[in-house]
């Protein structure tokens, strides 16, 4: 460092610190967004998955049956499309006073099996949608369309043949 505080007479130590900070930020962003799931991506695929939406009221059923495009939580990215909605009575397990286990219908509540087809990527570790939502049986996911926002559990996932 010379008498003016510059290394090799060209760049000051403060300037060097700024450059190192910016490089560190860029590297950090790359590590953050280039996760092991995406770096191990093997192929683009179309998936069909079924989400069980439990114990919802009729207005949610009606909104789901309108179908349409499913999106991310900000309603900006198109993820897939609802292709089918099967509706049944909602049931809940309970124990009676004399110790019996009963499966009882919940009045005015319904369970919907919502089938969604969506594009995503298959990796060594599993399946993910374009917004990095992991498609795994047992995982709780949001279903967001133009008309409805609800939550359910994935009960099946399959890769569609081209």
């Amino acid at each position, binding site marked *: 460092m010379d008498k003016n505080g510059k290394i090799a007479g060209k*760049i000051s130590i403060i*300037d060097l610190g*700024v*450059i190192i900070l*910016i490089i560190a930020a860029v590297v950090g962003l790359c590590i953050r967004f280039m996760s092991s799931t995406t770096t191990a991506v093997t192929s683009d695929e179309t998936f069909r998955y079924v989400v069980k939406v439990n114990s*919802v*009221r009729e*207005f*949610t059923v*009606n*909104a789901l049956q309108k179908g*349409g*495009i499913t*999106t991310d939580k900000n*309603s*900006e*990215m*198109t993820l897939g499309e609802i292709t089918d909605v099967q509706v049944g009575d909602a049931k*809940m397990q*309970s*124990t*009676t*006073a004399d110790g*019996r286990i*009963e499966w*009882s*219908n*919940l*009045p*005015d*509540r319904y369970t919907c099996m919502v089938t969604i087809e969506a594009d995503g990527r298959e990796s060594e570790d599993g399946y993910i949608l374009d917004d990095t939502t992991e498609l795994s049986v047992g995982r709780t996911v949001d279903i*967001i*369309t*133009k*008309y*409805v*926002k*609800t939550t359910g559990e994935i009960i099946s996932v399959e890769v569609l043949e081209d």
Partner: protein
Amino acid sequence: MKKSKWTIIDTVIVVAAAAVLAAAGVIFGPSLMEPSTNETITFTVMIQDREKGIAAAMSEGDNVTLSLTEKDGGVIKSVRTEPTVVMVYDSIDGVYRNEVNDEREDIYIEIEADCKVTDKSITTGDTDIKVGADIPVRGKGYATNGYIIDIVD
């Protein structure tokens, strides 16, 4: 006049500014380019299980705020109430049934708002209008929140 020299720092600043512009384009570009229409949308908000009398503070024609940021609003078109219905468990028979609770009420408010409508969403300002969404409703002298249960578009 002394001729200015292009330094490494100048290059870093230009690259950083370009990166910020690119990021802004990625984040905001799709929403700006998506086709949309401005429409007046009517939707119903259900406010569950409230003390009797709260609905009396609400009137047709009230201007209400639909977000916590006081930007997004609408106008009440109608207000109606029904006794609260509670699901209870009968442990003797092992069944669930609905029981009416006459001391509490559910409030149904029909609201009309100017919305931006696209293929993916209906929004008034920054507030999403979707069935199942939790939404605050604040008017002059009352503030509460409920769930959107119906949209007429």
